[in-house]
Structure formats: structure tokens, C-alpha cells
């Protein structure tokens, strides 16, 4: 019996319970009169359906977690398992192989002992899953029957069903907290393991990043200095990208809000927003395939001999373009929030539109614009694919935009996409980098939101 089948069966039982309870409640209502009943027939139906399904599903969820251990125990108790090696690692490998053959995800065994265990495995799996299915069905029946027995005119089915609904609404909103806690816990926990191997001071302030040499056994202490990565991230995300994005984004917002005709605005705004919707892997490919070679030949023609084909400039330029819509929509909002009377006052004094914008609107909207820029920076430094594909892997501390630099996110991808164990400093370093990234983007966001909020209140 497969898992899907049993879920469907319990679901069907729930539907049947719903129909029976509703019919019974309708009959009762007809007998005693509408006003004498507490709840509507449908609500009785839902009450019975919930009682039928929820305990059974809860049981199945528990059973699915207990079952593997039960199966393994009963397989180990069979005579075929007596000859297994005693050390846990190789025994578990053989068991896992037998399991994957039994479930059909593997065709044949490498280890002859696994072949002998396939049959016991299959028998045990069938036994326990049938047992679980029967127990779940009995539970569904029992609870459903109990709930059905409570269908009375005065029974407060609606109240109880709504309580379940309220709890599930609350549960859904708690998932956000659980996720946040999960992120923080996993980052902090794995980073702790990393910092037990590498001194945090050396990590945060060291100038040499060479995890490969650490993995090859040259010692951990001097290999994980992350300053070149921090610099590369800031260089690309906060400097080059912003040099592109701030003027273009700000001027676009000004033009579209102050000068453009309504039709132009109606068309151009969504077109610019498409820039934010293009997947970053597409930008990355574009940066690596088109922009980077063009910049390299530009650099060579300018006489820069050591120009790299993966340059900070290519990644930063393309990232800046990606960020334009963020800057422009934030600037758009904050310019629109400046009271019309200030603008009218300036124009009435004889200032031209551009003078009004430069001397009145922008200064008034500045906090909002700055907040938007901070949000854009936070997004740029967390961006991964563009820098993975176009920025390179060499950890250089350089000011030369034509040279290759590496970033925090690039290194996270590099560290975690090989085949290595999860207790080496090299893989755990990715979590420490993730923690730094998380903290920095969080701080940037908090500051940005504060700035924006404070400014909003000034005119209200």
C-alpha cells in the first residue's frame, strides 16, 4: 500500500463523513426547526470531516518517522542479517543499498550481502506499511464515528470548526517566525563549528583567502581571511553597481514623474520594471558572454595589459542595470510623497521645473531616496548569479575595476557545490560567510526602513 493511496483513502473517508454528517444534521434541522439548531448542516459536516482526517494524518506523520527504524530492526533480526559486518558505517551502507533495491530506485546491488537483504526488507516494509495503513484507517473510522455521534441540534459544531480554522491561521503566520529562527539557528550553529576550527578574528580581518589550500591540509588559520571577499562584494555591489544605478534610476524616476506624458509613463514604467523581473542567471550569462569580453577589449585598447576576462566592472555594470528599477521606484515614491504645495510654491516664485526638482523636490525627498539606495545596496550584495558567472574566483584586494575579484556569494557557491564532507572547515566557511551576509543585509534593511519611515512622518 503506497503512501498516496492511504492518504487518498483517508481523504475519501473524510468526504464520506462530511456527507453523512451533513445529511444527518439536515434531517435533525427539519425535525426540530431551524432556530433550535446551533450550527448549519455544513458546519456539522466539516466538524466530522476534520475529526476523521486530522488524527489519522497526525498518526501517519508520526508513523512515517518511526517506520524506518522499525523496518531496520526487523531486518537486522532476520537470519540473513547475522553475517553483516559489525561496524555501523558499512552495515548501514549495505542496509541502504538493500532499501533502495527494495523500493525500486536501484536495479542491482554492488554488494552481494545487500541482495540477500532485499527480500526481508520488502517483507518488513510491506508489513509495517500495511500495519500503519490499517491503524490509520481504524483511527479515522473511530474518530469519525465519535464525531458523528455528537451531531445534535444544540451541538456547537460551528464554534469548534472555527477554532480549528483560527489555529491553522495562527500556525500559518508562525511559519515566518519558524523560518527566521531556522535561518538564524542553522547559520549560527554551523558557524560555531567553523569558528571552533578558525579564529573569528582571523576570519573577519585576515587578508588571505585560499580555502583550497586549507582543504589540502596546509592548516586553517591563515587560509580563511575574508577581507578580500568583503572588499570584492562592496566594490561590485555598493560602488560600481551604484555608480550605474543611482544616476540612471534617479533621473528615470524624475523624468517619468515630472516630465513624461501620461502615456509615456504608462508604457515606460512597466518596461523598466521588467529589468527587475529578468532572472539573474540571464544577467549573469549576458555579463559573461557579451559585456565582459567587450570590457576586456576596451581595457586592452586603453593600454591596460592585465585586464581579466572576468572583471569586477562587467559584474558591477550589469548588476547596476538590474538594480535600476529598485532605485527608480523608491525615488518615484518619495518624490510623489513631497507635498504638491512645496512644488507649486517653488514654481510660483519663478523657478524652472528643473530648479524646482533640484532645489526643492530632491532635498525634500532625500531621506526616501537614501533609504531606497540602501535597500538596493542590500540587494546587490546578496545577489549571487551575476557575480558567480561574471566576477571571477580570484580573491584580489584591488581597486582596478578591470581585474577579477570575488565576492561573498560567489565563494559560498564555490564552497558548497563540490563533493566534500560537512565537517571540514572549507564547507563550514560558507555558513560563516552566510551569517555575515545575513547580518549585514539585515542591518542595511533596518536602517533603510528607519530612514524611510522617519521621513514619511515629517509630512503627515
Amino acid at each position: 500500500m503506497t503512501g498516496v493511496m492511504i492518504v487518498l483513502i483517508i481523504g475519501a473517508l473524510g468526504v464520506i463523513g462530511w456527507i453523512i454528517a451533513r445529511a444527518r444534521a439536515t434531517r435533525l434541522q427539519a425535525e426540530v426547526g431551524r432556530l433550535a439548531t446551533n450550527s448549519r448542516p455544513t458546519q456539522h459536516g466539516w466538524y466530522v470531516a476534520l475529526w476523521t482526517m486530522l488524527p489519522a494524518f497526525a498518526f501517519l506523520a508520526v508513523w512515517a518517522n518511526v517506520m524506518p527504524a522499525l523496518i531496520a530492526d526487523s531486518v537486522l533480526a532476520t537470519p540473513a542479517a547475522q553475517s553483516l559486518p559489525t561496524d555501523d558505517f558499512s552495515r548501514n551502507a549495505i542496509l541502504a543499498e538493500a532499501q533502495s533495491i527494495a523500493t525500486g530506485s536501484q536495479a542491482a546491488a554492488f554488494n552481494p550481502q545487500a541482495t540477500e537483504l532485499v527480500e526481508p526488507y520488502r517483507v518488513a516494509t510491506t508489513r509495517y506499511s500495511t500495519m500503519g495503513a490499517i491503524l490509520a484507517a481504524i483511527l479515522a473510522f473511530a474518530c469519525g464515528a465519535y464525531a458523528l455521534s455528537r451531531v445534535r441540534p444544540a451541538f456547537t459544531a460551528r464554534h469548534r470548526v472555527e477554532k480549528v480554522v483560527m489555529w491553522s491561521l495562527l500556525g500559518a503566520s508562525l511559519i515566518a517566525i519558524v523560518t527566521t529562527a531556522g535561518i538564524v539557528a542553522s547559520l549560527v550553529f554551523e558557524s560555531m563549528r567553523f569558528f571552533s576550527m578558525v579564529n573569528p578574528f582571523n576570519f573577519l580581518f585576515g587578508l588571505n583567502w585560499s580555502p583550497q589550500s586549507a582543504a589540502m591540509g596546509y592548516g586553517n588559520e591563515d587560509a580563511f581571511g575574508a577581507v578580500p571577499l568583503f572588499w570584492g562584494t562592496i566594490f561590485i555591489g555598493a560602488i560600481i553597481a551604484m555608480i550605474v544605478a543611482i544616476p540612471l534610476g534617479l533621473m528615470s524616476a524624475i523624468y517619468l514623474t515630472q516630465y513624461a506624458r501620461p502615456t509615456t509613463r504608462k508604457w515606460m514604467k512597466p518596461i523598466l520594471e521588467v529589468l527587475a523581473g529578468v532572472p539573474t542567471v540571464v544577467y549573469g550569462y549576458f555579463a559573461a558572454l557579451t559585456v565582459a569580453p567587450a570590457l576586456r577589449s576596451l581595457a586592452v585598447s586603453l593600454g591596460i595589459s592585465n585586464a581579466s576576462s572576468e572583471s569586477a566592472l562587467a559584474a558591477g555594470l550589469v548588476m547596476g542595470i538590474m538594480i535600476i528599477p529598485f532605485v527608480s521606484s523608491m525615488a518615484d515614491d518619495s518624490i510623489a510623497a513631497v507635498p504638491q504645495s512645496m512644488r507649486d510654491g517653488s514654481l510660483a516664485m519663478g523657478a524652472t521645473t528643473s530648479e524646482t526638482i533640484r532645489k526643492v523636490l530632491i532635498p525634500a525627498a532625500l531621506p526616501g531616496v537614501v533609504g531606497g539606495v540602501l535597500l538596493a545596496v542590500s540587494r546587490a550584495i546578496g545577489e549571487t548569479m551575476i557575480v558567480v558567472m561574471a566576477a571571477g574566483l580570484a580573491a584580489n584586494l584591488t581597486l582596478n575595476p578591470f581585474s577579477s575579484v570575488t565576492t561573498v556569494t560567489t565563494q559560498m557557491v564555490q564552497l558548497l557545490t563540490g563533493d566534500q564532507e560537512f565537517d571540514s572547515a572549507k564547507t563550514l566557511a560558507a555558513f560563516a560567510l552566510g551569517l555575515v551576509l545575513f547580518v549585514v543585509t539585515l542591518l542595511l534593511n533596518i536602517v533603510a526602513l528607519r530612514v524611510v519611515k522617519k521621513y514619511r512622518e515629517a509630512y503627515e
Partner: protein
Amino acid sequence: MSGETVLDRAAASDRAERVPTDWRGDAMKRRIARRYAAERRFRLWGMAAVLVSAGFLAFLLISMMGNGLRGFTQTEVAVPIDFPRSPALIDPAVLATNPEQALASANLPAVLEQATREAFGLPETQILSPNAVLTLRKAIISDPTILQRKATVNLPASTGLDVAMKSDGTPADEALVAKLGDAGALSTAFNIGFLTGSDGTDPTMVGIWGALKGSLITMVITLALSFPIGVFAALYLEEYAPRNRWTDLIEVSINNLAAVPSIIFGLLGLAIFLNVMHLPRSAPLVGGMTLALMTMPVIVIAGRNAIKAVPPSIRDAALGIGASPVQVVFHHVLPLALPGILTGTIIGMARALGETAPLLMIGMRAFVSQPPGGFTDPATVLPVQIFLWSDEVGRGFIEKTSAAIIVLLAFLLTMNSIAIFLRNKFEKKW
């Protein structure tokens, strides 16, 4: 000169009674002209910024089109094959009953080898794609009578030939194209295999169906998890939540999650789903769960705005005739807010569909040459496939990568236009 006059006048007006401003004076005219010029410049700068941004988008799309449209076509070589004389070992009886089996042992590569040597004097591998055997097999199955005669079959060309035919190849391949072209053997056909195939090692054999199917399965999981959770959370926060420290905490974490870099969600998926819960690596299930956590805050925020826009009078009216708070929300508020929620959901799903980084973290960058059959099979998704192909050195992969990008962008633009359409259609002013 002009500055002096203005200054003189200003100084004079301090001393004596104010002299009326000479608006028609040369100095003032020049000054106004300068200010108007600055105005025009500023305006032009604004227009230039918009045009540069839009121009970049156009450049991106056009260059992808230019590279990618060729990926949907394939160069074919017309190879004359003399079947009766070929070394094919085909049993006509088996062919009639079980053609797959008959052709599996028919030694078709040798047939092709002999045919290309006779026709062009070159080995098969230099002219034809490894896929050619499959095409030949299909041709024989669809028309078994060609085994009795001499026939010309259109077969997919090798990567080198394909690249040389479409753009600049190596000198050797260019010469080959010229030679075969003179013989009239080359043609271009729509590459159906690109839409139905999966990842492979040879650019002429690869297709996007495997990655597309992986994307679809992943999106199903993402939607099934993030939509109900997101809508429920939005309803709770907007309609029922008391104002206290807990709901503040929930709100802060949702807003914060919306701003967390996507790669961090990959780390979460790796640490929790793979290392703690031991779910299968590279599976759409894990990818979908990771992306759902990322998409959920987007849906919550859009949902809250949509729910907020429903006027209180509707709630009051329902409450006034005796509906319970749950009935008010599920019978009245939710249906009215649904278009707004759907718009937000589509935008969130579009973002999830284009996401790559978190999926790399949970191991969805393996080489997968079969479309996934279920939620736990190893799979890849479209953006990851693009990333993997972009790393391939072969020239032929450039056009395949761009072609896959065109497919991905087509999906995203469609989703976004649906969202805009929905927004315009259901936008209500109460």
C-alpha cells in the same frame, strides 16, 4: 560684464530706492536663456536615463534572440544510404513485430559510417551528430521499405558542422560546409529534439524538456505550500491578530524574510532539509520547499495589501446580520481580495521560477539526463540548466543556452503580463 551690471544695480537698490528690474535687458535675457538651457539639459538627461535603461533591456533581449533563435534550428545532412549493400543486420520478421529490438542490434553506426565514407569520403563522426542513429532508426520504423532500396535520409549534422553552418566555425568545418553545401546536401530544419530532450554531452543532442518538467514540478510544490500558508498568514495578521509583541514579531520576521538574500534560503534548505531531515538531494521536493519559504513573504505582503483594500463596511454588514468572524472572512473578504492576492502570487512565482542560487545550494546542479518522474527524482530546473550550459566550453552550447533563456523569458513575461492584466481587470475603486 553682465554680472557687474546686476551687482551694481543690487548695490544701488540698497543705497537708494529700488530700481525696477530690467526684465528686457541683455543681462536678464542671457540669464534666462542660460536657465532655460539648463532646464532643457536636465530634461534631456532624464530622457537619456530612461532610454539607456530601456535600451539596455532591448539590447539584452535582441542579443539573446540573435544567439538563441538558431538554437531552435538544426543543420541536417542529406546522406544517401544504399541499404541492400550496407552492413545492416536487420531481421525483417522481427522488424515487423518488435522494431525497437530489431534495430537495437542492427549495427546502424556501421551503416552510417559506410554511407558517409561512400558519399563524402569522410568518417561518420565528423559529419553527423551522435543523435543521427536515433533519427535513422525512426526513419526506418516509419517506412521499413527503404531497407530494400537506396534512399537519401536527412540526418542531424555534427556540432562543428552545425556551428560552421550557422556562424563562424573552425576552418576545417567551414571547408566541410562549403564542400557539402556545393553538393547540395545541407539543409536547416526545426530542431524538435530541443523541445523534447534533456541534458546531454553533445550540444546537438540536448533539449530543455527535462529542465522544464523539473521546473514545473518544483513550481507545483512551491505553489502548494506557499499559497495557502501565505494567504492564511495574511488573513490572520490583517483580520484577527491582536496588537501585541507576538504579532509584531511575526510582522517583522515576514518583512525581514522578504529582504533576505535568496542564497541564504539555500543554506537553510541545505542545513535543515538535507542535513537534518535527510530528504533526497537534487529533488524537486526540496527545491520546491526552499523556494516556498522564499515566496511566502511575497504572498503575505501582497495578500495583506489586498485584504486591507476591502472596505470595512462589507465586514460590518456581514457581522451585522450574524455572521461569525470566520464566515465574514471566508465568505466575503477573501473572495473580494482574491484578485489582488493572485497578482502577488503570480509575481512571487515568477521570481521563484527564475531563481537559481538557492537551488545550487541544495544540489540541483547535477547532470540529469532524464526528465524527473516524481517529486523525489533527481531533477534540474530551467535557470540551473542555463547556468550549467553556460559553463560548457563547446561553441554549440552558446546558442542552446540562449535558446533556453528565450524559453525562460517567454514564461516569465507571460506570467508578468497575466499579473498586470489581472491587476488592471480587477482593480476596484470602492
